[in-house]
């Protein structure tokens, strides 16, 4: 009947932010899906846990729009893995997404700071 597996998502990702996180993670080196998820978790100190059900669709979508490219490699553990790398187009998108994100943060903190002042007054 009802599926009772807990569905944890400590901080919900805003729609579209997952793309940015993936692109950012791939900036220095190609990586496979599991590695990307682990890297995001590690660099956010476990605050951001990427759901597999969101990660792979996002990777495949980015691949389709040619922001990333993929190839099959054999890992150090003799495991066949699909490794994604950033394309030139992906780099441009990363820059765009970053600046958009920064504008959003700026706007958000402006609003939130204003709200606090009002409360204080």
């Amino acid at each position, binding site marked *: 009947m009802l599926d*009772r597996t807990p569905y944890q998502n400590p901080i919900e990702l805003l729609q579209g932010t997952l793309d940015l996180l993936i692109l950012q993670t791939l900036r220095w080196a190609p990586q496979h899906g599991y590695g990307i998820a682990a890297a995001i978790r590690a660099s956010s100190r476990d605050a951001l846990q990427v759901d597999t059900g969101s990660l792979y669709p996002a990777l495949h979508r980015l691949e389709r729009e040619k922001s990333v490219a993929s190839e099959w490699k054999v890992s150090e*553990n003799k495991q066949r893995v699909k490794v994604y790398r950033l394309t030139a187009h992906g780099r441009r998108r990363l820059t765009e997404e970053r600046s958009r994100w920064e504008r959003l943060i700026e706007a958000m903190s402006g609003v939130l700071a204003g709200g606090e002042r009002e409360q204080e007054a």
Partner: protein
Amino acid sequence: MKKPGRLFGRNRRERELDDEIASHLAMAERDRIDAGERPESARAAAEREIGNIAIVKEVTREQWGGAWLEQLGRDARYGLRLLRRSPGFTAVAVAALALGIGANAAIFSVVDGVLLRPLPFPEPDRIVAVEPLSTQSVRVPLSASYPDFFDWKAQSHSFTAMASRRGIGMTMTGGSEAAHLAGQLVSSDFFTVLQTAPALGRAFVAADDRPGARVVILSHELWQTRFGSDPGILGRSITLEGRPHTVVGVMPRGFQFPLDERNAEFWTSLAMDTEGEKPWTSNRGLTAMNVIARLRPGVSQESAQAEMNAIAANLARQYPDDDRYRAEARVIPELRRAVGNVRTPLLVLLGAVGCVLLIACANVANLLLARATTRHRELAIRAAIGAGRRRVARQLMTESLILSLLGGAAGLGLALFGTRALLRLASSNIPRLGQVGLDARVFAFTLGISLLTAVLFGVAPAMRLSRTDLTESLKEGGRGSEGGVSHNRFRAALVVAETAIAAVLLAGAGLLIASLRHLEGVHPGFSPRDVVTFDTSLPETAYPEDKQSRFYDDLVSSVRARGGVRSAAAVFPLPLGDSHVGITFTIEGKPVPKSDEPAAAFRQVTPEYFTTMVIPILSGRDFTQRDEKSAPPVVIVNRALAARYFPGENALGKRIHPGIARDGESVTREIVGIVGDVKHRALDEEDSPEFYVPHRQLSIADMTVVARVDGDPKILQRDARAIVASMDRDVPVFHVRTLDEYLVASVAQPRFNALLLSLFAGVALVLTAVGLYGVLAYAVSLRTREIVIRMALGARQSDILRMVVRRGLVLALSGVGIGLLVALLVTRLLRSMLFQVAPTDPLTFAGAGLLLAAVALAASWFPAHRATRFNPMEALRGE
């Protein structure tokens, strides 16, 4: 067809996706082991972390994009996988849809074959029937007379051709045994109106209409069965009614006209009706003809109608004696005329199956919503990865489409059997039933309603579910009870709607059943039990008047002499049979203008007819063998005639003058007996005036023998042919039946309607019960915790029971209330099909409501009972 390369490409992509997820799992597992977890639990933990792998793959696949068709294919495959995974749901939904769609396909095949399909002639829309309308009181269509028909034809300009026709039976001799053939006596333009030429030979020409012409065109079937498809048949002479007729043509296979009478085996010209001292063709008062015509191109039915009304009004002024109350002539499409009687019942049935389909749709929508709550997580993930509402809705609609197409396919299978069963059940007086079958049009219709059905039951759930709020669902940990409650409200509305529709159907079916019961309770005025009937027809050439009555006297005595025959007589026409004769009469000493002469049903009978039929002789006497030509002319009238025309008087001894005359002779007859009323044409008619004359005083060539027997009627039925053959080998015996069969046939149509409507109402009832059960069971499962807590706090089982049942009854009774209100407005459509029952009969409505309420009570009982059996520990642990 997809290119192999594409197919291969997709397979590779599928494999790569599998590998990618597998490697993800493997890495996750290894990391956990590295971190110190035990290998057995590491795998499970990794899998749990990923969640539902099938859904992960599915939503990933969706990112691949591709052509619209490819996406649809993917949706369809995914949908099929889902349906396979819940076979119970799929089976119930497909079964409900198959019932609804199958019933619609079956009824549509009948409606299409009988009502909709155009006549099988060139430009069939232009073929019209022209009928005089009675302008005396009620506007009913009448038969036409030859002189009127000739005047119409000469004076009208709206038609390219106009022809008369009348049904006729003729005896063919010369073969191994005499055969009675059904045919049509038509004017020479008949085939011009239909624009259909014989397959062999020629159509009739004007010369064939002149006295003395004896020509005949055979039906393809008659040509095959009686003449072995002889290609040299043209010009051959065959003997009809003792006279040689030249075969001038053979119609193409399948040609039939008209559609609402017995299939014609031959067509002959109207020469016969132009002969004799007082020919039919010059008797304006003798009305027995149907008229067909072909509208001239560019002339509308309305303008033809206006012209015909003007002509009829003129004739009424010119010939007031005969045409005073025939001052209008109706022009209607021939197809419409031929199917006029079955149109309303068939459309009512089509409406009823439409309702059944609506109920099925509501049920499936209900099931979809119930199932959807368990799919909340999947839908939430889809939303999370950015699948828009539209995308989710499309996936859901694809699933609905698959369901409805499966239902449609199964329904078509049902329709195959359903149509066959319908054809067996249907009364033979539905025209064109032979053409009914599952063909391309029915397939197209079925596909069409399957698609429509998917929209009906799929759109609401798709809209509601695609709106699913991601945050809410995830917060609820996938339980989806919030959505569940609001869905449940919507589902409750669906159940109320279902119940309402079922109530309308039940009320309708109840009315038809009540009506049928009244009809079957009608006493026909005679006793139909144990009476064998058969028809014979004497060729007039070999049997002049005096020989006719002698033949029937002899025949009746031979039948009477048979073992097991209690009494026997002969009559024409048989009540509730195929023919009806109405004759005008005048009452001695009470003159009226000719146009206002009353008419009454007319029968020619041998003595002992009343005894055999068990029609009471209320006063006076029966005819005897002494009532012959040389004796004083006598007549027996029924109670209705005596009461209407001799109110407060004793009708016995009064004299009336029937308008029937042979060879110019006209007689005034003394009433010697008064008998009980009988139904002439149908059980639902009012008792009306009728009179009988003895066959020795007015003989007739065709009569029906009636014999009341002890024991098995089959013995006499088997012997009838031999008895007649021993008297004259050239006299055919046909329509060997029992009186009961005529009675059954006369209620066949109402019985068919009542049976089908009840069947559909029954299906509606079951579907509604299932729907109600589903909603309540689901509501109970949602409220498990509440119920358990209530019980823990001391609520008794009966309280819980009452709580759930009350909810069921509230839903059902709202539906019943709405349904019966709608029925008040809708059942008036049934008015023409009802007998002695008002379309808003309170008893029937109450019965329908009670039945539905009782079924609803039963459907509510089971979920309620289950609620009282919750084990508190288990229920709470389950939470």
